[in-house]
C-alpha cells in the first residue's frame, strides 16, 4: 500500500493545481482500482476507459476530498465503482438496442480470468469470500448481494461482518510473519 505521507503530499499538490500530482496518485492507486474496475466491467476495453475516466473525475473533484473523513483510497474507490457501474449499465443498454444481426460474440473480448481472489481472502470460508467479493469487487449493494447469494439480508450482513473480523485477526499476524521472513532473509 502507498505510504500515507507521500499520498497526502500528492493530494495537496493536486488540490493546489499541480496536475502532475495526478500521475503520482495514478502510479500509487491505479493497480488497486483497476483490480476493482476490471472485475465489475468484465471487459478490458471498457475497464481501461473507466479507469481513465475515474482519474479524470478524481482530478475534477479533488477539492471535495476531506482527509478527516476517511482514506483517499476509499474516496477514490467510490468514484471508480460508480463510474464502472454506470459504464456497464450504459454498455448493456446499447447492446439491447443493437441490431442482433450485427451483434458480435462478446466472449471474444473477455479478459484473463480475474475472478479468483488473492491474499488473505483466499483463506476465508467460501461463503465469507463470496460475500466480500460481491460487495467489494462486484459493486453490488448489500440488498442486491443477499439476493444473489439467496440468504436473508441480516444473514448476509453477518457474513460480511464475520469475514471482516476474521481478516482483522489475520492481518496483523500476516504482517508479523512477513516482517519475520524479511528479517530472516536479511540475516541470510
Amino acid at each position, binding site marked *: 500500500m502507498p505510504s500515507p505521507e507521500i499520498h497526502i503530499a500528492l493530494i495537496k499538490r493536486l488540490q493546489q493545481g499541480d496536475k502532475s500530482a495526478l500521475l503520482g496518485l495514478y502510479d500509487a492507486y491505479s493497480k488497486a482500482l483497476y483490480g476493482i474496475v476490471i472485475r465489475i466491467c468484465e471487459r478490458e476495453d471498457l475497464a481501461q476507459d473507466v479507469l481513465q475516466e475515474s482519474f479524470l473525475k478524481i482530478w475534477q473533484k479533488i477539492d471535495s476530498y476531506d482527509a478527516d473523513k476517511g482514506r483517499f483510497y476509499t474516496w477514490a474507490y467510490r468514484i471508480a465503482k460508480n463510474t464502472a457501474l454506470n459504464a456497464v449499465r450504459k454498455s448493456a443498454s446499447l447492446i439491447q438496442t443493437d441490431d442482433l444481426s450485427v451483434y458480435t460474440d462478446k466472449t471474444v473480448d473477455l479478459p484473463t480470468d480475474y475472478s479468483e481472489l488473492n491474499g488473505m*481472502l483466499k483463506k476465508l470460508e467460501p461463503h465469507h469470500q463470496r460475500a466480500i467479493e460481491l460487495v467489494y469487487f462486484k459493486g453490488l449493494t448489500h440488498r442486491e448481494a443477499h439476493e444473489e447469494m439467496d440468504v436473508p439480508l441480516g444473514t448476509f450482513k453477518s457474513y460480511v461482518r464475520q469475514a471482516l473480523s476474521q481478516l482483522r485477526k489475520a492481518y496483523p499476524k500476516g504482517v508479523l510473519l512477513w516482517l519475520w521472513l524479511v528479517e530472516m532473509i536479511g540475516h541470510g
Partner: protein
Amino acid sequence: MDKKKILEDGLLEQYLLGELDAETRQGVAAALANDMDLRAQFDALEEDFERIAFENAVEPPKKVRDALAASITDTTEETPVRTLSNTNTQRNTGFWVAASVAAVVAFGAVWMYNQWQASEENLKALETQTAALQERLSNLEANYEETASRYQQINNTNVVPLLLMGNEKSPSSKATAYVNHQTKEVILNAKGLRVLDKDHTYQMWADVEGEMINMGLVKTDEDYIILRYIDHAESLNITIEPAGGNDHPTVENLISNVVL
C-alpha cells in the same frame, strides 16, 4: 445515530462502500466525528479494505497512463514570437505588402487562439455540468431503487400488515407493522405515534412464551423503520422507555399491542 444500530446493521461497511442514502450517511458521519471508538473501528475497516484491494490489484496497460497524461497536459502553449532583425533594409512597396500580410496573419492567429481558448472554457464548463448531471442522475436512480425496494418489501403477498392502535394511555396513536415471516423482516411505519419529549422513546418488543424480547427503538418521525424479527413471536408490543431504550420493557407504559 445510535452506535449500536450502526454496528449491528452493518452501516459502517455500507458507509464505506458509499451505499447509504444521504440522511443515513450524514447520521453515520456525525457519529464517526463524535465517537472515537467508532472512528477507530472505521479506520481499521478502511485499512483492511485497502489492503484487500492491493492484494487483488491488477496492472493496467501502460496506454491508460499515457492517455491520462495526454488528457491533462496543458495544451495552451505560448505563441512563439519572432524578433525582427535590425538590418537597414529598403522599405519598398513589397516590404509593406509582406508586412501587411504578416500583420493580418498574426491578427488572425491571435483571434483564432482566443476563439479556441473560449471554446476550451465552454467545453470544460459543459463537462462540469455533465458530471454534475450524471451525479444527480445517479442519486435519483439510487433514491428510486431504494423506494422501489421499500415498496416491494411492503407490497408483497408474504407480508402481514398489522395495525397497532394506541390504548387509553395514548388513544390518538397508531402505527402499522409489516411482518414478513418468509424473509424474517419487520418494518414499522411510526408516523402516527404521538411525539414524545426528548427524554423518552418508543421501544418495540416481541412476546415469546411470555418473555418480552427487544425488537428495537421506534422513532416517531420515520415511516420506514426496520426492526429485528423475532422467531415464534406471539404478539408485538410498544412501550414508552427512557431515551436510549431499556433492557426490559416498562409494562405499565405499554401503549399498544397486537396479536400475531
